């Protein structure tokens, strides 16, 4: 089963996402900020990374750039989860190397469906 790294500073949401994905049978690793996310990405080699945009120590954008800059992690797909649903922000996320962008609030079903799509696309 695929391993998914979740970086989210808001604990309730982190748990919600983790629970939802675990409920759907995924292996989950969680980080509470951007730096931890970058470290865990290198350490755990997940199949997908979900990044919140606004996080302490390192924003989702910066974390994404760091992951994409590292030869060992650059091929791991990144999906942003953000309340910042504006086009410019989505563009900024994509520019940082993300593959998907999911706007909060989201339905757990929608999250699971999107995760499944991305994983299918990058598993080849």
């Amino acid at each position, binding site marked *: 089963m695929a391993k998914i790294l979740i970086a989210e500073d*808001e604990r*309730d*949401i982190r748990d*919600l*996402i983790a*629970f*939802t994905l675990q*409920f759907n049978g995924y292996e989950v690793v969680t980080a509470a900020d951007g730096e931890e996310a970058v470290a865990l990405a290198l350490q755990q080699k997940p199949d997908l990374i979900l990044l919140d945009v*606004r996080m302490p120590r390192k924003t989702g954008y910066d974390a994404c750039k760091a992951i994409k800059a590292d030869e060992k992690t650059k091929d791991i797909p990144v999906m942003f989860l*953000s*309340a*910042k*649903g*504006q086009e410019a922000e989505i563009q900024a996320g994509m520019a940082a190397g993300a593959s998907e962008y999911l*706007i*909060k*609030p*989201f*339905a*757990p*079903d929608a999250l699971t469906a999107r995760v499944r799509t991305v994983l299918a696309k990058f598993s080849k």
Partner: protein
Amino acid sequence: MSLEQSVLLGIGLLLTGLVLGVMVGASLRRTSRLRQSPASLAPAVKDQASRALQILTDFSQIVASPRGFDDCAKTVLEQVERLVAADRLEVAMWEAGEGTLQHFRLVPGLGSERHLEGGLPRQPSGNPAKLVQTRTPLFIPDTQTSPDKPDPAGIRSYIGIPLLVGEELVGVLEAGRSSTESYTAKDLEILQLLSGQVAVALHSRRLLAETSRMNTELKRRDTTRTAELRREKHITETLLRVLSEVSASLDLDRALNRTLALLNEVIGAEQGSILLVNAEDGSLNHRAGYGYMMPDRSSGTRPIGLKANEGLAGWVIKNRQAVLITDVRQDERWVELPVKSPYKRSAIAAPLTVGEDVIGIIMVFHHTEGFFTSENMSMVQAIGGQVAVAISNAQLYGLTRDQAERLRSMLRSQQVEASRRQAILEAVADGVLVTDASNKINFVNSSAERILGLEAEAIRGQSLDNFAGLFGKATLAWTRTIRAWSESPAKYQPGESYAEQLTLENEHVVLVHLAPVIWQGEFLGTVSIFRDITREVEVDRLKSEFVATVSHELRTPMTSIKGYADLLMMGAAGALNEKQTHFLKIIGSNTERLSSLVTDLLDLSRIEGGRVSLSLQPLDLREVAESAIGEIARCSQVDKKAMELKLDAPADLPRVHGDAERVRQILGNLLENSYRYTPEKGCITVRLLPLDGEIQADVIDNGVGVLPADQARIFERFFRGDNPLVLATAGTGLGLPIVKQLVNMHKGRIWMKSSGVAGEGSIFSFTLPLHQEDAASS
């Protein structure tokens, strides 16, 4: 006989030699030598000679005394009569210039005294004519034996002597006797002897009389001439006074009234008027008056009720000729005005002529007939000339003065306007910068100084070419625009202007509005308005940040609420009973509502902040409509709310010019409203109508409709009206404001119609412009 004759001749010679007559004769008598000379003559003639001398002396003495000619002539005739008997004795004076003789004789008077009677001078005839012609004595002892007829008839004997002074004939002396006793040689001698004295005496008196007469005549002439001169002087003086009055005073009324007063004084008129022709309506206007009863008639302009071609004045104006009228009542040209004047009988009227034009008339009156003379008329004419010039001058002066006054007030108001404008420009908070035709800055207000961070002295008069250096590189596009307009003003399209947001080197954000000043194709300069929007930009940024933060902060807890509610619904925490499921659904739908409210708020704030840009492209509205209808159909299925959905659109619909995402948002929002406010089993139709240059989209439903009272505010933010049927359905009141903003951004129009009756629904319509390619081909 011969001796006597020689003595007589001698004396005669002597006498004829005494040209100056009586006085010389008198001295001759007193001269002892002369008295002694006859004594030395032969004794035979001594008696006779002394007798003749005595006669002569006496005669000389007598005729020397009278002073005038008449007395002298009378004395001469009396003395001659004493020496020579005569029934008829006449002396006649010869007028050489005229060729006439004037006869004088003595006639009986009232008493014993006789007096001299003179005839009229006439051409001589008969014996006198002979005397004049021959200048020799004529002796006819008896006319009956002589071929020479005496004159007049009845004279038997006749002696005629020419009276000579030197060689000059001065007259003739004639004596005649009607009795049978005829004249003798002795009578002839005596008369001849006396003739010299008579000639000198009468001639000298005649000369004296002539001189005196001439003197008197000269005196008379002199008096006449002096009077003439005085009158001429008076006229000249009057004219001079009039001239100086009218030219010194530019107050025309005063000048004209003074002129009339002077004129009337000089010629004795009682009333006078100056009437002017009104060039506009051809009426005659009273301009000045003198001698009228009513004081208000003395000055000012007012119509007199006559046209310039009527009456006596009309005649004078038409004929350009002055007239002297003895009695106006006898003159058929005279028109009596309603107010009759008994004071007008004699009149003089003269035209007032300036160049070719008769501008009016001057008239004077007197209450008696025939009062004025032609001399008066000349005077009136002369003064009329002066008055005409004065009026013309005054009119010119008035015109010039009015013009000057108008110019002055225009200038003043312009100055007032200019300073007011300057004050306004200085007072406005926006910076104003004006450049002239040569692209030099000629005005900068204090706001512009502050905004641009430059001293007015530093930029005023500077050329545009220095702008980049002054304001930084951001101003390049602005200065380029100014230069382009100044170089080819013809290319400027009316209404075109330039607006740009500049970030200056001092980090101020400035909004520049630039417009050229082009008048009749000539480039006069530009006006730039600067607005420092640094603060607005900052506020806007803060607002966006705030909205973004708020929406983020709202979304985070909403994510948890929704997520955990969904997990519960999924049965992730165990099986749920029916009540639990129902409650979780309520939580879910309200979270959804809260979420869309946040989305709408964010959207509207971005649209209103101008931070949404459209990516316009050709768009098939039919496709958009189909997709939006499909969306509602899915909702209908999910909600299990049955709804009839229809699309009414022609197959070959031209494409519109729009942003696909935003047009979908517009149509989707309107359809969603219809869906929400139309009860189950209602009908919603989307109708697309191609019009001229645009497509109209109508969203028609048969729902609750919009109350007429609410329709005006339907597109306002958060407005939902008071209709309980509407309020029964959840809504934010932000959908329609967003739709309206988006339609406006597309340069379309949006409106709605509704009867407000539930079940009749509403029609929301909007238009979108056609895409240019499709518009051109359709």
